[in-house]
């Protein structure tokens, strides 16, 4: 055992387990991962509820929906959702889904749960900081929840919080206390994410077990590792922006607010700021954020596909290279959110180039997945279904990105439903499928029991078809020019023609949302009543399946941490006895590790 591992082991041994230290302020990376997962699931339900509210409003504008008043109270007096609160619901939906569900649910859950297990470490490098990371995230959650209950309602300037709208409470009520809480919550989230990133990066670099080179790490670890680097570098920039916006709101500075604004029958006394500056800062963070969410999903997808197709991942090195290329490019493409924002058109040209180049590594990933499936022996576990669904969603969403990334087409499509469709496919649904694939795949390791296969498959088909029914039609609305973030489509004739389509999308949303109940029942039911899992139910080759039990205790391996002899996806190798060879299999290596 290396000295690094040894000192960590000592810390763990000295750590006593009481109820509180085991389930609440746990230092164990597996418990922290589960805490992230459960919290993200709760947030997902809230976020989904908000999307139902929005969809019902869009399908039946102006109609009284009594349940709105019951649920939303003063935000929907008389059963009619007020426009300012529609925008607030939309803002919270975006914020919750991006930060609390996708970021925390993917990087938080699988980063914590899988990194030490898959690289062969006792725990994260800093168990204490890891625990703090979750609880800072929890605090951020509480603050964000509180903002629903303030007098003027939650933040209502979109999840992008463009000033001046987000800075001036006279422009929209949500920009009062709600927006301040929003900024505070995001600042806490940034701190939590920083704690997490530091841990992931350092753990992956320094705590790998013997023989686990970077070239033998499973793709999930690679993806989370790269996402952590993105988080480390992107979030601080948002922190700087959030601080400046808070100063604008509370100390009347004018970083983002120009002179001579006239809002609500009053001239404001700001001087000299620039709204475009916020957009630059926000998207410098915002675009890497997309990949903080997407990359872990792609990593999980790669691993599940290799495992369940019983084939080595085709082009393992190219997959890593493409992850790295996407990560690097993601930092220099932020301007593609701003082609028609008044940004210098020359900068626009630069950003077109970098943006569309991302399509190349993305295409490589898709082709490699497909080749991995080719002549495989596909086992249709729910995890595999979701991984294959992810491939489909990623293709669809990726291809629409080629439209949006090309600046002239973006003139027409910017801020229309085409964009909504695009990012829900490639970032929303694809990442969500990554979460589902991960949960179904690693549930046996998390809880020592199996989830129901049949219900998992039903859940997949309802969700997969539902996602296409919800988001695919939105492309057509987008090309026609139906703008996003509209409270109702009743004011323009050309948007009215989509009344039927909107109703259709809403019904699809309700059904798809309801289908998630199947998942929840399956998830919580299996936790207690599921079939007892074997140690390695999927016959996977990676390290986490070599722990002594299906559910390892703190420290992960009872004896020594195993030494690694081969790559992570050795399935169906010609010289193996079975159709997989564990990474720890030392057949043919003699007594090497005993030296």
């Amino acid at each position, binding site marked *: 055992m290396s000295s690094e591992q040894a000192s960590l082991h000592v810390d763990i041994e000295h750590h006593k387990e009481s109820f509180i230290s085991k389930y609440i302020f746990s230092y164990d990376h597996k418990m922290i991962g589960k805490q992230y997962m459960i919290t993200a699931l709760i947030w997902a339900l809230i976020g989904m509820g908000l999307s139902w509210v929005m969809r019902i409003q869009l399908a039946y504008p102006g109609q009284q929906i009594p349940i709105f008043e019951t649920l939303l109270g003063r935000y929907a007096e008389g059963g009619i959702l007020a426009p300012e609160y529609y925008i607030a619901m939309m803002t919270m939906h975006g914020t919750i889904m991006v930060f609390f569900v996708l970021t925390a649910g993917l990087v938080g859950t699988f980063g914590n749960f899988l990194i030490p297990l898959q690289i062969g470490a006792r725990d994260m490098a800093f168990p204490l900081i890891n625990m703090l990371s979750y609880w800072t995230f929890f605090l951020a959650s509480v603050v964000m929840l509180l903002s629903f209950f303030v007098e003027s309602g939650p933040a209502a300037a979109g999840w992008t919080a463009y000033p001046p709208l987000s800075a001036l409470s006279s422009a929209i009520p949500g920009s009062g206390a709600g927006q301040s809480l929003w900024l505070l919550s995001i600042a806490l989230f940034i701190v939590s994410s920083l704690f997490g990133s530091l841990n992931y990066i350092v753990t992956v670099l320094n705590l790998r077990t013997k023989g686990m080179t970077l070239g033998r790490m499973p793709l999930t670890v690679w993806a989370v590792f790269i996402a952590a680097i993105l988080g480390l570098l992107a979030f601080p920039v948002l922190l700087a922006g959030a601080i400046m916006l808070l100063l604008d709101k509370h100390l009347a500075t004018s970083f983002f607010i120009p002179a001579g604004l006239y809002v609500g029958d009053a001239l404001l006394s700001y001087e000299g700021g620039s709204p*475009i500056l916020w957009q*630059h800062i926000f998207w410098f963070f915002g675009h890497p954020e997309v990949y903080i969410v997407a990359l872990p999903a792609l990593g999980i997808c790669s691993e599940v596909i290799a495992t369940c197709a019983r084939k080595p991942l085709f082009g393992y090195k190219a997959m890593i290279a493409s992850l790295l290329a996407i990560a690097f490019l993601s*930092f*220099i493409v932020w301007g593609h959110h701003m082609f028609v924002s*008044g940004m*210098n058109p020359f900068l626009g040209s630069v950003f077109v180039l970098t943006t569309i180049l991302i399509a190349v590594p993305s295409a490589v990933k898709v082709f490699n997945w497909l080749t991995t499936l080719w002549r495989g022996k596909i086992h249709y576990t729910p995890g595999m279904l979701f991984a294959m669904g992810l491939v489909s969603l990623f293709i669809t969403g990726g291809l629409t990105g080629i439209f949006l990334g090309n600046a002239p087409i973006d003139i027409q499509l910017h801020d229309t439903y085409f964009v909504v469709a695009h990012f829900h496919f490639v970032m929303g649904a694809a990442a969500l499928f990554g979460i589902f694939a991960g949960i179904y795949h690693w549930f046996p390791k998390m809880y020592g029991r199996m989830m129901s296969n049949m219900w998992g498959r039903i859940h997949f088909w309802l969700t997969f078809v539902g996602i296409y029914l919800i988001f695919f039609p939105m492309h057509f609305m987008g090309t026609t020019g139906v703008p996003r973030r509209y409270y109702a489509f009743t004011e323009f004739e050309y948007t009215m023609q989509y009344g039927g389509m909107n109703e259709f999308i809403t019904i699809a949303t309700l059904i798809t949302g309801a289908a998630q109940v199947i998942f929840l029942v399956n998830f919580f039911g299996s936790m207690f009543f599921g079939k007892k899992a074997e140690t390695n139910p999927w016959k996977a080759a990676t390290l986490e399946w070599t722990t002594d039990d299906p559910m390892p205790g703190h420290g992960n391996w009872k004896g020594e941490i195993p030494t690694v002899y081969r790559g992570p996806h050795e399935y169906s190798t010609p010289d193996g006895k079975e159709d997989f060879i564990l990474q720890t299999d030392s057949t043919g290596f003699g007594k090497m590790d005993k030296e």
Partner: protein
Amino acid sequence: MSKQEHSKKVYIKVWIWLLAITIAGFIVSPLGLPGWLHNLFIVIIALMKGGLIVAYFMHLKFERLSLIYSILLPLILIVALAVALLYEGTTRFL
């Protein structure tokens, strides 16, 4: 950690250098150089100072090359943001 990296002599040398170029930064201002030259000079001095602190006080110079790259290369990205903002500011705004 070898003794050389932490030798007192080197630290004193670096310290004197730091003071010397800080003073040089002050002297250049009243000289009345053309604006861009003055700015260039000041920025170079700042980079030199930063370089000295990072290289010797934080002894990055004595670390492995891989570590040096993993610390310094990401900084290009934030410089890209600064360059884009300055370009935007000088060509388009207001």
